[in-house]
């Protein structure tokens, strides 16, 4: 039997998407080095122009360099995606573990609460949270993070339910292990796979939600660029300067596709049934 790592390298989709993601992440991390221009520097003489005059991808309505803004945008968008998913994954995991393992009234309370959150239209909830906390990258992260908690709770709970009746969990109880150790040492390591898959897919969802918030004017604050913000803003200039919307859209598409396909590939890799075929 091959190890997961070996199988990973055999899976072309996983490798390609992984590489794309690494490149994007590197771009985000090294934005200050990579970006050719200052992202806030306005250039009155070169507003909304196409490629040229030292602007590789052209400029926006203030004459700021699009390429640099897209590179920095990766930073914001990925931060929002990853951090918000980290929040939802953390709380979702905790709640899902408790709910799935203990069942009964704990399960009922947690899951009904999740139902409540879930039945609440996502954008409205995010909107309410941002409106309450005020705008800004961290608030956006928090809002999106909270909104996604129910999804993770459900995923984790489902995984816990499938694991908790396995005999190794029972054997842990049989040797007298404490509940907390069972939860974190026996069960948690075994639900990482669905969690990981869910997370990789949720990141792209979070990037999209940020853009929706930007559309409603409540995303990341200017002049910090986020892809969603850039797309929302440049919609007004779609016909006048199509480049302004095309480039950030491309960046976002690539990233989201990569995350999604990577998540799917992970699912295939981690699914023992799928493997045998």
């Amino acid at each position: 039997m091959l190890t997961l790592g070996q199988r990973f390298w055999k899976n072309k989709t996983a490798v390609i998407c992984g590489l794309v993601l690494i490149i994007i992440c590197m771009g985000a991390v090294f934005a200050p080095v990579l970006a050719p221009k200052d992202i806030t520097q306005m250039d009155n003489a070169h507003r909304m122009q196409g490629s040229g005059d030292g602007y590789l991808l052209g400029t926006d309505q203030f004459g700021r360099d699009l390429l640099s803004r897209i590179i920095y945008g990766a930073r914001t968008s990925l931060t929002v995606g990853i951090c918000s998913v980290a929040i939802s994954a953390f709380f979702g995991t905790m709640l899902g573990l408790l709910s799935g393992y203990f069942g009964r009234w704990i399960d009922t309370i947690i899951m009904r609460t999740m139902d409540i959150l879930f039945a609440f239209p996502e954008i409205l909830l995010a909107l309410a949270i941002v409106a309450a906390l005020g705008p800004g990258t961290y608030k956006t992260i928090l809002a999106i993070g909270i909104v996604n908690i129910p999804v993770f709770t459900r995923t984790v709970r489902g995984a816990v339910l499938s694991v908790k009746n396995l005999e190794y969990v029972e054997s842990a109880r049989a040797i007298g292990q404490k509940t907390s150790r069972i939860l974190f040492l026996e069960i948690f390591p075994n639900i990482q796979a669905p969690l990981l898959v869910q997370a990789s897919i949720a990141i792209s969802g979070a990037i999209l939600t940020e853009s929706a918030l930007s559309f409603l004017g409540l995303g990341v604050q200017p002049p910090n660029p986020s892809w969603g913000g850039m797309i929302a803003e440049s919609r007004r200039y779609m016909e006048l300067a199509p480049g302004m919307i095309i480039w950030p859209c491309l960046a976002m598409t690539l990233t989201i596709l990569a995350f999604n396909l990577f998540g799917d590939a992970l699912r295939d890799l981690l699914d023992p049934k799928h493997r045998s075929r």
Partner: protein
Amino acid sequence: MKALMEVKNLKKHFPVKSGFSKKAMVKAVDGLEFTVYEGETLSIVGESGCGKSTMGRCLLRLIEPTEGQILFEGQDLMQLSPEEMRLRRRDMQLVFQDPFSSLNPRKTIRQILMEPLIVHNIGNTAEKKAKVEWIIEKVGLSPDYLNRYPHEFSGGQRQRVGIARALILQPKLIVADEPVSALDVSIQAQILNLMHDLQKEFKLTYIFISHDLSVVKHISDRVAVMYLGKIVEIAHKSKLYQSPQHPYTKALLSSVPLPNPDVKKERILLEGDLPSPSNPPTGCSFHPRCQNAVEACKNRAPILEEKADHHLVSCHLIEKR
């Protein structure tokens, strides 16, 4: 012989959801009575779904019995608080049927074996380490294997790890829930031999759950036959196999295919299937499949009585000798 564990009127009913108003109950275990003596192997046989595993889990209070008493060395386990029970489990351990799902795939063998020692805080780090290495050799594996993960082992090897995990606390009682039924015959033989040797060495008491009558015959001292949550017959192995009393036991024994084409057995073919434990027949639960059933069997449930010397049977038709 000293009784290690006495079980009295043990019941476990699972509520099953069906509809809104009526709450059906699966009577997985429905009034078990037996005693396990120190150093012996008591086997529990019965067809799939008759409640063997449920019973095993109830004995360790891994699931809460609905009713009944479990006296372990005279102490009623049912009276213990969850925390006390947790600590008491040091003396009673479980070996599982499935060597694949009973080991956490994310832990090394060392971690798996270390865990019981950590939980019960036995010895310092060096002692723990030594103990792990000692036990792994006892079950016939090399200590080199300790740093590997379960998926790197064959089924038989995993089952050895499972046994090592149960043994490392040096318990008094081991409940083995079909420990060999997932294994190939040749590996099964290895494990049965191992269990036999370990029993000798550590003076273990086994409750051995199985549906394989030939395996049971090989390993046990006494055998209890279960049918639909109840024990229908319990006796010393030789008595049970030579002169089975209960009609179900007889049918069971005659159904076992023997690897010997020359022996042409009289086969007792039962009619119909195992009834559902959520809706057991009235009276004697075996009566719908019993060829000898009389009117009384339908109306009155028989009780498990001593019909001959140390031979308990639950059947109206068997006369007390």
